[in-house]
């Protein structure tokens, strides 16, 4: 049981208050963003290229600190946490990166198992779990393949397996269906949905795949020029 869980169950999974992000020598990528994602919610984030979707997700998975404003994950104000606590918080977050970020010298199995290894677990304790998950994403025959030998779609599925292996409390996916066929895209979305409904995982997916958005009734938050717009009809939480 994570040390954050017991007392903070009612806190939002993600809460951003007046968050602004500016990279060096650029204008504001995000401006005064207020956002609440409740625990157990399932949310889409969309917007045109360059709108700041990936930057917003980076703030959520603690890759960057905001220039201004406050970020809270599971009630914890991230700016006040020590590095060890931040690491523990990151272990509660599963991330599917847009560019996959797989380690080329590791096999599909080892990449998917990375969060387990980082958490200090022995291989024998997660062997079956990882193999099952890779089988489920259709990579049962490719567990020992080095990632450069995998196709784009296969690499994406390894990245998804890596994000899910730890049964994260918050799943953040940046264009998770961008490199897979529509059928696999639907399967992935179904898996995320199952995780959300059965385990209560909070899911936030950045996408500009309109087909994907049409197939779901989940709330959609739109980012445009670094500003958030709420989808009122679907109850977006911005």
């Amino acid at each position, binding site marked *: 049981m994570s040390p954050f869980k017991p007392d903070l169950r009612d806190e939002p999974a993600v809460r951003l208050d007046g968050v602004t992000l500016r990279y060096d020598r650029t204008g504001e990528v995000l401006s005064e963003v207020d956002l609440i994602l409740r625990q157990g919610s399932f949310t889409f984030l969309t917007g045109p290229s360059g709108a700041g979707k990936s930057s917003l997700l980076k703030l959520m*998975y*603690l*890759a*960057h*600190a905001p220039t201004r404003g406050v970020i809270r994950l599971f009630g914890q104000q*991230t700016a006040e946490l020590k*590095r*060890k606590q*931040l*690491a*523990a*918080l*990151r*272990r509660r*977050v599963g*991330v599917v990166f847009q560019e996959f*970020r797989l*380690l*080329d*010298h*590791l*096999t599909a199995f*080892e990449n998917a198992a*990375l*969060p387990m*290894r*980082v*958490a200090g677990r022995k*291989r*024998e304790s997660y*062997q079956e779990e990882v193999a099952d998950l890779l089988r489920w994403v259709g990579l049962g025959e490719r567990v020992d393949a080095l990632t450069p030998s995998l196709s784009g779609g296969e690499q994406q599925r390894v990245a998804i397996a*890596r994000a899910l292996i730890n049964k994260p409390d918050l799943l953040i996916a940046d264009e998770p269906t961008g490199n897979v066929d529509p059928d696999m895209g639907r399967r992935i979305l179904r898996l995320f949905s199952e995780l959300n409904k059965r385990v209560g995982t909070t899911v936030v997916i950045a996408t500009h795949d309109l087909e994907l958005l049409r197939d779901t009734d989940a709330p959609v938050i739109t980012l445009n020029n670094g500003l958030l717009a709420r989808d009122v009809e679907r109850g977006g939480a911005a």
Partner: protein
Amino acid sequence: MKRETPLLPISDAREAALFFVVGALCFLAALAALTTRGTYTAAKAWGAQIEGEVTVQLRSTDRRSAEAATHIVRDIAGVESARLLSRDEIDEALEPFFGSGGMPAGLPQPLIIVVEAVSDDGTLLAPQIEDVLIEHGLDAIAASNWQYSDDVKDLLAVLRMIAFGVVVLLSTTAIAVIAFATHAALLARRDIVDVLHLSGAEDRYIAGLFERRFWLLALKAGAGGAIAALMMTAMIVVTGAQAGEIEAQLLPQLSLDFWDFVILLVTPVAAGLAARMAARLTVMTSLRETL
């Protein structure tokens, strides 16, 4: 059960170059330390020897009287031994001035008694010997070698400082090179570091990967350097033992005793520890710049 692949990729060309540089630095550092120790030990032994010696020069007398004087000196309290130098020994000592033909026939042959004192300090013994010989009607001048000894001590102090400086310089260069290489490796593997970091790895976990990698690299490179230094030293020692006295003086004063082996054993361990420390500091500093 399959063995886990290391999270940092197996060494690449950059690490091969670093291996060579660390090995070469360890070789130079070990050789500098061994040479310093050898020279210092030899100089110290020579200093101790001349401090306990008194040289007596006899004037206006013949060899037979000189031999009698040698017997007189031997009976003086505090004298361990006394020996009248032979003609050949005198010729050899004066060879730099008169060449291999020895002294010209017209010049008087110096008569010199080399006295070894019981104690290491012949300073007090010299005037005593001189007084006794003068009492026996001999024109003698006795001198201890303390003035040479002081020169040797000064030389030793300078030598020690230079050697210490060289060893410190080589060690800090090795540490700086390793720190630089670690930083370069960190930059080259920033993608791996980022993925581990975002997967929830603690800083010390990531630093540990680099520490282990550079500890082993420097340990192996240091061992290579130390073995090369051992071989070089052994070669010099053997060559020195086979060479003539004058030729041997051209070689560094080296030995291979217990402490020399300690230096050779410590070198790779010190290199490994320095590498580990440099890697840890570099990685931790770099990670602290991230969230």
